[in-house]
């Protein structure tokens, strides 16, 4: 049985049996998260999985059984995760959400979390519908796409990646539930990013959005998807293989690197927000799914840093630290006397 650097096998990263529809994209994402964390030898005890409500938000039950988890409220994953992170900065937080959860009811929380740059991984499992309530359009459904019932979406769709860039997020990527090769390195890199790492994963809903009118069906994705880069993850200690000659290396906090290798004619500067926006707008205009890393900004300070937060987690501070002395109280009292 093979194990990782922590001596854990892959099974140690798994969770309960999924109760999603068979074929649901979300289950594949679960799998890729398991792979990523296993490969990166992340200590499950240090991880907290937090989600909202929806089929997607159920998935944290299906991975990392040894990690604390919280299937919270519809649209409230973002603030909940913010509070948890500030209370215990040592937690590695994986936030899982759906397009309904983040782009509709949770849109405010999503945007404001990004503005604050809360250190965590934020994954949206994006199927363009509300799976759990039976397939109504979500806000990421493309304009002109249709429901199973035939109804056409007339509203502008929200592109969570360009929105994330707009909100100052420094790690913005998109992938597809079926693409292990791309998603696993992305998740590994995201886990080492010192700020909010946002990944929008297109994840077909086989039950309500896998029909021809849907633009997020398996067929539509296959047809419209293209990769901006091919991705490789290089651990901190690892030597950089010759394969990566000519690749762009994006360095992460722990010294590991994400290698971006040119695919076809695509080459945009991942450090330039305007270039990233251009890629996104053009793909949208051409009715294509661009996938890969759009934007990366290492220097950006995060909420923990901005707040000069105690190095020791707040949750571990005890009374002797948290309660000032009697003398200090008396000094305060004197000011009011």
């Amino acid at each position, binding site marked *: 049985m093979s194990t990782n650097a922590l001596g854990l096998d892959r099974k140690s990263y798994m969770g*309960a049996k999924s109760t999603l529809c068979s074929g649901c994209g979300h289950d594949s994402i679960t799998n890729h998260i398991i792979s990523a964390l296993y490969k990166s030898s992340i*200590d*499950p*005890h*240090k991880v*907290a999985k*937090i989600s909202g409500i929806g089929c997607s938000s159920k998935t*944290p*039950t299906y991975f990392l*059984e*040894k*990690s*604390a*988890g*919280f*299937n*919270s*409220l519809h649209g*409230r994953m*973002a*603030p*909940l*995760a*913010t*509070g*948890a*992170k*500030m*209370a*215990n900065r040592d*937690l590695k937080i994986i936030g899982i959400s759906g397009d309904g959860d983040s782009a509709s009811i949770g849109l*405010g*929380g999503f*945007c*404001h979390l990004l503005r*604050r740059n809360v250190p965590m991984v934020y994954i949206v499992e994006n199927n363009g519908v509300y799976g759990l309530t039976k397939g109504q359009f979500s806000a990421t459904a493309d304009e002109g796409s249709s429901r199973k019932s035939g109804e056409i979406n007339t509203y502008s769709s929200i592109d969570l990646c360009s929105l994330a860039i707009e909100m100052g997020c420094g790690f913005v990527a998109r992938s597809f539930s079926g693409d292990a090769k791309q998603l696993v390195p992305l998740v590994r890199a995201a886990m080492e990013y010192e700020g909010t790492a946002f990944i929008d994963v297109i994840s077909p809903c086989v039950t309500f959005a896998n029909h021809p009118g849907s633009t997020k069906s398996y067929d539509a994705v296959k047809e419209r998807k293209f990769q901006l880069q091919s991705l490789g993850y290089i651990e901190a200690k690892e030597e950089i293989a010759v394969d990566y000659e000519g690749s762009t290396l994006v360095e992460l906090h722990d010294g590991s690197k994400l290698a971006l290798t040119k695919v076809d004619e695509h080459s945009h500067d991942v450090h330039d927000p305007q270039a990233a926006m251009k890629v996104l707008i053009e793909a949208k205009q051409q009715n294509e799914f661009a996938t890969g890393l759009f934007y990366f900004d290492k220097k950006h300070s995060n*909420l923990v840093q901005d*707040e*000069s*937060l*105690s*190095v020791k*987690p*707040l*949750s*571990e*501070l005890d*009374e002797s*630290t*948290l*309660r*000032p002395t*009697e003398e*200090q*109280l*008396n000094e*305060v*009292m004197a000011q*009011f*006397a």
Partner: protein
Amino acid sequence: MSQIVNDFSVTVATVNGSGSQSANNILMRSIFKMGVPVSGKNLFPSNIAGLPTWFSIRASEKGYVGRKPSSDIVIAMNRDTIIEDFQWLKPGGLFIYNDGLRTNPEEFPEGVRTLGINFNDLCKEVTKSIQLKKLLVNMIYVGALTEILQIPEHVVAETIEHQFKGKESVFEINKKAVNIGREYVKENLSKEDWGIKVEERNLTRDKILIDGNTSGALGFVYAGCSFASWYPITPSSSLAESFEDFCNKLRVTSDGQKQFSMVQSEDELSAISMVAGAGWAGARAMTTTSGPGISLMAETIGLMYFAEIPGVIWDVQRMGPSTGLPTRTSQGDVLAAARCSHGDTRHPVFFPATPKECFDFANLAFDLSERAQTPVFILSDLDLGMNFWMSDRFEYPKTGFDRGKVLKKEDLEKLESFARYADVDGDGIPYRTLPGTDHDLAAYFTRGTGHTPEAKYSEAPDNYQNLMNRLDRKWETIKTMVPSPEVREGKDNKKAYVYFGSTDLVVEELLDIMGEKDVSVMRLKAYPFHNDVKEFIEAHDEVVIIEQNQHGQMGELMRAEFPSLARKISSQTNCDGLPLCPEILATNLKNRGQHVN
């Protein structure tokens, strides 16, 4: 006229944004420094500048602090309300007005003692700066008043230095303004007309003068609260802001690490959700808000109840419903707090009555919240929270934090299994672990959906009913943990008054006025009701609850809880946004017919 000593009130009528607040503070503190109990109330509009504001100061040797329907001295600084402001004046009182405001004394009511002062002219002697003039004009009335009240110059001077500590440069100019005011009165008001004075006493030693919001903020610091998220809303904002100020002074390491975290959130839904996240992760976490915020927090509060996550919500109540009157006081959120959220939820609520209880209850609330693993409300109000009260000095907490049933790695090592929601001790309160605990048994899955004792999702009917029953068992346990009411048994068992929160500040005076010093009274400190509450009601024939809301919300809770006693329980309500006035309340209680609310 006869001389009034140490028992009077003064109202300053001005506009907000005029910087009169520090002048009023100096006035109030000067009286306090004379050893005479004093309190101050600000009646301000819901805008930022230019609208009428009234600040009333009451000095009372008896320590009475209730609102007076009228004042012995009115200082009218606001041109727009000058005629209206006569209504604040007691018959025989002294009306000082700014006659630099193109006022027309002929419009004044007849037979009133008035003194016009051209503050603007006088102020020219103090400074040329227009900016400063705006502020110093107020110090001139401080001078005029302290002269009338015969408060020695050095007392006022000391108060000024206390007030502006750290800004030595402004000491002299303020003192100068005060003295100009004093001189003016000496020259223009005949001694006989003064009639009111402050005489030195020894009644404020070991006391402080403070508002409830500052007190609660300090309480949270000493309660070990390390995370706060809030969304600004009157009248609670100053609680959050002074919590941050205190933390910046008392909770920063020498190398600049902050041993607290404070996030101004994007709305109240996020504020309480951050609190839930932080409470789940093991910090003592709180939020401050007012009525509209409670409504917005309802969903997450239900989650905290059901997933059993601690956290404290401090609600400084203002007039509802809806946006209501943001700058007026109320006790209108009793039901909204106690029953917050859909489904079958209920929550402990504390009702602090004084600044000291604001300080103490912050700590009690966290002890209860972490012990019982449930959100806890503290209901203060604008009157208690933003006005100035004399208080005993706060005492250093005698007991350490009760962080409740938390299993650490070491504890788990001794266990074979861990079931997050099992009622191991029979008190309805399960054990919890914190995320990040380095042990394979520690992890569990938190959710707002049906769950087994092992924290697995379950739709099984028995399981759900058991879970709900355990939560009820926990509720019974909580009843034994809340503070017991403050009871004073009267001469007989006929009638009793029940009250809570800031109403406490007027009860002594109320009973005095009503000549009912020997009636039984009970002050509630918390919901759910302690067993003593029931016993008290059982022991009396008729119980009147004094409430500052429209529908008698506490009465509703009580009747629901004590069916066999319900017929005895009714409420005397007041819902006009003003702090209770003992005189008016006394009349209402006397006139009270069969109006049962």
